[in-house]
């Protein structure tokens, strides 16, 4: 399904009869003796936007990297539209095409122009002809206000522009699911809004997204569901209203209290 078609589809979470976009079951991951994820269970319906909040080191980024198969998991399963992507013989390159990820530090390719950054994967992975890849990339760049940056190199762009290019690069593969790993944490405060607006637009267009974020205001606005991670487990989840206004767990209350004291909510 292309983004344009998705625009037409009503962004209605959990359409009846539809398979969940993602099912994570009892996911565990350790780095040496340090168990970072200690049994995560999480289901995302199609068109759902789920925000992961929690202190640094609570496992948000690791969870996203596991879903993208950038980390090998130790136990549990991850199903993407019913397919077990953590099965032993699965083709990781094929899975990753369907799951886009945007990183905190952008990770654009510094030796390529903006256009080449965006078209590399469509050309090399999807074997799309260059003209078509260029045309589609140009259209996406235009849509996100980057049309005039096509020929620039990443180092010439602001952080906000670089992060928007990184989002466009992920979108160019027409992923079914987008993972966002603290994508505004490396940005100057005045550049955060332009990136978050892009995500809001994607949410309106019905993109399924799993978002690790420290931007509580943004999470409250955009999320259909918020999950509070603590020490490698999802301690509490619910609607933004439930989590931010009526948290039931003391740990969640504590975390939000600290956020409020830091002036971040």
């Amino acid at each position, binding site marked *: 399904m292309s983004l344009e078609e998705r625009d037409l589809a009503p962004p209605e979470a959990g359409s009846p009869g539809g398979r969940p976009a993602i099912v994570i079951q009892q996911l565990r991951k350790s780095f040496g003796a340090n168990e970072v994820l200690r049994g995560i269970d999480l289901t995302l319906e199609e068109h759902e936007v789920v925000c992961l909040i929690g202190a640094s080191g609570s496992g948000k980024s690791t969870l996203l990297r596991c879903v*993208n198969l*950038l980390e090998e998991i130790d136990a549990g399963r991850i199903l993407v539209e019913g397919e077990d992507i953590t099965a032993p013989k699965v083709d*990781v*390159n*094929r899975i*990753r*095409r369907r*799951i*886009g*990820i945007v*990183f905190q*530090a952008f*990770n*654009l*390719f*510094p*030796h390529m122009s903006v256009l080449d950054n965006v078209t*590399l*994967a469509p050309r*090399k*992975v999807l074997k799309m002809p260059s003209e078509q890849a260029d045309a589609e990339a140009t259209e996406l760049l235009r849509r996100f206000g980057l049309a005039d940056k096509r020929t620039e*190199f*990443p*180092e010439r762009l602001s952080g906000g522009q670089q992060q928007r290019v990184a989002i466009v*690069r*992920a979108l160019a*593969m027409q992923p079914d699911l987008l993972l966002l790993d603290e994508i505004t944490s490396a940005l100057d405060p005045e550049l955060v809004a332009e990136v978050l607006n892009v995500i809001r637009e994607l949410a309106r267009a019905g993109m399924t997204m799993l978002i690790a974020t420290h931007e509580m205001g943004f999470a409250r606005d955009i999320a259909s569901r918020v999950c509070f991670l603590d020490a490698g487990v999802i301690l509490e989840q619910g609607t933004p209203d439930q989590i931010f206004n009526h948290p039931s767990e003391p740990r969640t209350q504590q975390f939000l209290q600290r956020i409020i004291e830091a002036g971040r909510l």
Partner: protein
Amino acid sequence: MSGFGGIGPPDQGDLVSYSPGGPLYARQQQSAVRSTFVALASTFVFFTILAWVVVHAPGWPQVQKSFFDGSLFVSSLPDIAAAFLVNVQLFLISEALILVLALVVAILRSVPGPVLYPVRLLATIYVDVFRAIPGVLVIYILGFGIPGLGLAGVPNDPFFYAVVALTLVYSAYVSEVYRAGIESVHPSQEAAARSLGLSRFQAMRFVILPQAIRRVVPPLLNDFIGLQKDTVLVSYIGVVEIFRQSQITEAANFNFTPYMATALVFLVFTIPLARLTDYLVSRDRASQAAGGFR
């Protein structure tokens, strides 16, 4: 105009006087001219003294006759320059092979995973062995040893073994240069490429290597300066190249002047490459300081 009398960077008040044609600008120009003059003068004095010491040494007349025979220099130069073409061939063929072989070795050493452990081990042994043995020994062992086996179909041409030996020795060094470049590319670049669905090979080919190679061009050129000079080592297995040719001319005339001609040829060809390398290094440093891509 507070800084008017001072030397060094102007402060705010000097902006007007610092503009081209302004008095401070003129002052700095003047000081640059002066330091260039001092540098030239001290260099001149140093070499004049050195030359004086050499030509007043007790053995100088003898050395002058056997190393600086002007007419022999002129008459030996054409043969020596012609023989240098053999070095150029050696250098160019080996260099092309080294660029490829070293890259393959570097990539093999960089592949993770337990399955490829034997491959990594072999590549590591190769690099260790050929960096440990002096190049001239490798040239001897291959150049005399392999034809000596008398196997059918094995070439006898010393030029062939010269190329093989230089390629094996230098690829070991150059593969380390490549590997340093590959490892200098941050792992997040591979993660980004793989996350888009690129295979490990595609990530290496399109994302990591282009950045790695750009970074290692100066050290690569440095190794090639070494290779250019080490082509004379193959004279030991009977390739008539520039050094062998100068030995022949020397023996025919009982005079060392041909070696001076050879040295001159190398100076002419190597110094531009050395300057280019330095230029590239300083350009890299400048672009890094300016926040360019690393």
